[in-house]
């Protein structure tokens, strides 16, 4: 009886530790909650060009959020591209490849034909040049 309870206590502690380690996981935890919610709801999607897009017609708040994030992304791409001796478009497009690959099931992304697609369990449709 005592053995079982100590084992269950260990499991519980282990579980708590695991949760503690998993919760502050990268990317997802550090996104703004409104942005994360809009991604999960499919209101915003990752475009091929490395920027976010508004899917369909959404509220002004969502459009403003996307615009703000895209301005930040552009500044980031410009800086990184210069360091890598690449053009802004080259860097942004590569970023788009990777960001589309990293989308979670249910999130929206832009397919090579320009249409919005919902990420399924399989790999997304990407430009053939994407790594």
């Amino acid at each position: 009886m005592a053995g079982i309870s100590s084992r269950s206590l260990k499991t519980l502690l282990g579980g708590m530790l695991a949760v503690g380690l998993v919760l502050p996981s990268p990317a997802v935890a550090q996104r703004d909650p409104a942005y994360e919610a809009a991604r999960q709801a499919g209101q915003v999607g990752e475009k091929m060009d490395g920027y976010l897009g508004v899917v369909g017609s959404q509220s002004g708040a969502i459009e403003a959020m996307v615009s703000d994030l895209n301005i930040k992304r552009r500044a980031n791409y410009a800086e990184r591209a210069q360091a890598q001796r690449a053009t802004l478009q080259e860097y942004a497009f590569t970023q788009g490849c990777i960001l589309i690959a990293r989308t979670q099931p249910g999130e929206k992304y832009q397919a090579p034909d320009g249409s919005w697609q919902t990420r399924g369990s399989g790999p997304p449709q990407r430009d053939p040049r994407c790594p």
Partner: protein
Amino acid sequence: MKTAKLTKSASQAHKPRVMGKRKVTAGVMAVLGSALASGCISVNAPNEPIVIELNINITQEVIYRLAGDVQQNIEANPEIF
């Protein structure tokens, strides 16, 4: 339906055939009219901006070279991705 016969066998003053012709003409006019009305070309502006492919000059070589830095970039700036 029986057509009324004239007591005097003379040519009819009013031929029903004319009536039929008029009917056909009226029908044709109606069809033409509706065709013209529905044949108007309506131009609707698309909601989505027209996407012009500007990425055709980006080579796969460059993309592969940048891929590693892009991964690091996501880890360094998770709030904007």
